[in-house]
Structures are given as C-alpha cells and as structure tokens.
C-alpha cells in the first residue's frame, strides 16, 4: 500500500486490521480487509454491486449494531480508538455519515436539522453558540447564502441537492474525524452532483472522507486514493492516479475498463 497518498505524512486517522463482516454465519460480505486512511484525503471506494462497499463503510460507525445477525470482527482504529471496543454512540459522533438518499429530519427546520446532532445527544448550547455552529456548517457546505433567510422552513422544502448538502452540514456540525458517504450523489442531478464534488474538495482541507461511488469519473475527479473491492475483499488500495493508469491487479483493470461491474 506504499502508493497511497498521504497529504501531510501524518499518522492514519483510520486503520483497518483484518476486518471481516458477515450477515449470515460463515458468509463474509467483507473479508479480511486491512488498510489505512490518512488525514485530509478523499478515498473513493469502488467495486461491483454487492462487493461489500456499504458493509465496510457501515462497520466504521457501528451501524451493524442495529441488526443482531451482523457480526464484525477485526480491529478498526479511529484516531487511536478501537471502534469495536468503544461505545457506539461515541464512535458515531467521531464518524459522520451521509446516506444515498438525502434524509433531513422532516419535522425539523433547516436550523434544527444542522443542530440535530447536538439535540439528539442532549448537548445544551446557548443561542450564540447555536447560531455560530449553524452558520459555520452551512457556509462549509455552501448552503448559507441560499437558506439564510429560510432558517425556520422545514428541511424537506429544499431541492434534493440542497437537502444532501444540508445532511452533510448536519454531519459536519459535530466536527467528526472522518466523513463516510455512501453514494451521496447517486440520487442527484449532474449540477447538484457537481456542487457536492466541489464542496468535498473544499472540505478536504479539514476532513478525511470515504466515499462509495459507482461513478468512476467522479472517483477520478475528486479522490486522492481509491479502494477497489471485489467479493468482499479489498483487492487494491492505491493513489487514484496510479490505480486508474497502472492498476496492479487484473480485476481492478477489468473493472476500470468496463469489462465487468
């Protein structure tokens, strides 16, 4: 994995050590994944449908805990903490997640949606702190100017692209260590997609991001590193340029050239 881009030569924010996930005993949706994610990088997670991308992503913030049948083994180290041995609520505050379908909370205003993480965690803030967090987070996702006069409107009044940016703002408001995104633009039109991509490049200054995508040109446009998964295994993890020009693995090459997937 020596080709992985590490912007500042820093310690990894996230490290996978022999991570496996199974939905049914003995059947692994993710199999022995070991690798590292460095600060201030965007990592694209690619691979054919069903190869385990979402499963790997959801292992990081312990979403698998919601379903009793799912077993996760190995170690996931997030900022020095073993995720699987840490309180899931603490882990989830450190790892923000953005879903495929924009899902602002329908009964909350735009303002409250941004602050949802604080509300749900019972963290009390005074008015100035709230205003500051909301403005910062919305500026971060380039939504501030569009919604600053409609703070009390419901989040669901926004367009799909705006809703997704609101969801990113909601995740960022908690100042997570990493941002996990599972096909965040696949439900959006090209213009909204474009804006989100620009936004992610901007956010890279402050955050590390993992983004699952089926869109290879998107991966090429925005990611520093790319992971290619196949049948639950991490086949290749390299800096994106190298992976797209000189893939090491035959399967990666076949996938990237459209032979399958």
């Amino acid at each position, binding site marked *: 994995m020596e080709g992985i881009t590490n912007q500042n030569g820093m310690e990894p924010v996230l490290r996978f050590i022999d991570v496996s996930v199974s939905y049914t005993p003995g059947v692994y949706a993710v199999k022995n994944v070991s690798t590292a994610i460095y600060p201030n990088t965007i990592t694209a997670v690619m691979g054919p449908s069903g190869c385990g991308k979402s499963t790997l992503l959801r292992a990081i*913030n312990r*979403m698998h805990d*919601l379903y009793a049948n799912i077993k996760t083994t190995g170690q996931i180290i997030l900022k020095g903490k073993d995720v699987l041995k840490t309180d899931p*609520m*603490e*882990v*989830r*505050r450190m790892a*923000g*997640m953005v*879903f495929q*379908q924009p*899902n602002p*909370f*329908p*009964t909350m205003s735009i303002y409250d949606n941004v602050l*949802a*993480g604080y*509300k*749900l*965690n*019972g963290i009390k803030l005074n008015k100035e702190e709230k205003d500051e967090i909301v403005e910062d987070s919305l500026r971060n996702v380039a939504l501030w100017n569009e919604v600053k006069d409609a703070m009390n409107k419901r989040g*669901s009044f926004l367009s799909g692209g705006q809703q997704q940016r609101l*969801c990113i703002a*909601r*995740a960022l408001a*908690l100042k997570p260590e990493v941002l996990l995104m599972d096909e965040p633009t696949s439900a959006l039109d090209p213009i909204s997609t474009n804006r989100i991509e620009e936004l992610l490049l901007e956010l890279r200054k402050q955050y590390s991001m993992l983004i699952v995508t089926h869109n290879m040109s998107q991966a090429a446009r925005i990611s520093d590193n790319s992971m290619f998964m196949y049948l639950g295994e991490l086949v290749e993890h390299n800096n994106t340029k190298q992976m797209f020009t000189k893939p090491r693995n035959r399967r990666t090459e076949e996938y990237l050239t459209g032979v399958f997937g």
Partner: protein
Amino acid sequence: MKRSGIASIKARKGKDRLVYWFVCLFSFLAMIPLFVILYNVISKGYKNFNLNLFTKGTPSSMDALMAKMNGEPIPGGILNGITGSLLIVGMAILFSVPIGLSVGVYLSENRKHKFARIISFLADLLQGMPSIVIGIIAYAWVVKPLGGYSALAGSIALTIMMLPMIIRSTEETLKMLPQSYKEAGLALGSSYTNVVFKILIPSGFGGIFTGILLAISRVLGETAPLMLTALGASVVNWNIMEPSSAIPLLIWDFYNDPNLVEMVWSSSLLLLIVIFLLNGIAKIVARKWKV
C-alpha cells in the same frame, strides 16, 4: 376484426357507465341513515340545546314533570355527564396514550420477535372484543376488588378499548417512516430513546395523533362498559373513586324516563358535535402533518 373491436369497446364503456351509476346509487343509499340521524338529532335536539345543558346537573323526574305541566323548559342539563365524561375519558387518555405509544413503538421496532407477534395478535383480539365483555372484565377486576363502582373503573374499561387502536395507529405510522431517519439519527451518535422520541414519534405525529383522536371519539359514546363500572351519578363528581356519570349514561337514563326523554336529543346532539369535531381535527391533522 376491427369493427368487432370497436363494438366491444362500446359495450365495455356501457358496462363501465352502468357500474358507475350503481356505485353512486349505493353510496347514496348508504348515506341515507346518516342523514336521517342528523335530521332527527338536530331537529329534536336544538330545543334544549341551551346554556342550561352545560351549567346544570340532571333534573329530577319530578321537577321535569312539574316544569312540563307549567309549560316551562326542562329545569336542568347534563353538567354531571359532561364533567363525568371529561373525567373518565381524560383518565383513559392518560392511561392509554403512554402505554399504547410504547407498545406501538415496540411492535414497529421488533417486527420479527416472537413476543412482538404475540402482542400484535392480542391487540387484534382486543380490538374485536365486544365492549360489554370489556365492561364485565373491568367489573370483575376493578369494581369488585375496589369494593364499588367508580370513575376509575370506567376509565380502565375505556383504556382497554382505546389501547388496540392507539397501538395499531402508532405501529402502522412508524412502519411507514423510512428506515433512514432512524439510521441518520443513530449515525449522529444519538441514543435509541432520543431517536424514538425526537425523530420517529414527531415524524409520525400526524398519524399517531389521528389514531388517538379517533380512539377518543370511539369511546366517548360507549355506554355498556360504563354501566358496569362508573355506574352513573346525578351530581357532578370529580372523585375518581366515586361513581360518576357520563353523557352516554345520561342518554340511556333519559331514554328510560318519560319526563326527561326530550333530553335524549339534546345530549345526543352534543355528543355528535364533539365526535364530529374530533374527527374533523383528526382529518386536518392527518392532512397537514404529512412528512
């Protein structure tokens, strides 16, 4: 070939029209009883629908007879029934809403558990239970042990009737919400309880609230279970351990008293108005609170 095709389309259109008119006709027929009820209740009830109805307790049969002979209006109202209904139904709301909500949440969140399926089945059984049977059960399990009829016993009977409706509406409403609201909440580090109370229930508020209102309007008119539990009282009572009147109980009493029988209609009119209002509010809330 072509001609017969056209002919069959014509025939089908004719049939469609026939069916349409039949549907209209039957819909109209089905509405006739409603109009008859409304006409009767309003035309006979408005006479005594006055301030007395809301400010005075039930008159004695004798007083009513005297007034009638003097050509005066009935000297009383149904204040004891109104307060009784408020007390009994109010308590039933206090009992049934928290329990019904909790069970509804439990059922929607644990769809596959065996225990949840059993509860769900029991709720269905309860929903089909005749109200008189529920009254008898409340009599045996509450009235007898407490040593007497009481508003409390009445409210427990009504609670049992409201529960399955609240459970079902809560469960169905929550099941309709996308799983991603819950996941998004948890992904922000929220506790499960907070997700339920700050996201799921508010998001399903319209449906849940509508279910509660409909359950209330359903038990407001219940008579049989109250006869066996709250019994009735001729004076205003706010003590939950004492027998208490209720509007439907008074309607039954009035019906059995030739001197008071006129008051059947004004009391029914009040009950109908309240129930229509509740249904109306339920409709509006269900429409407005769409997420």
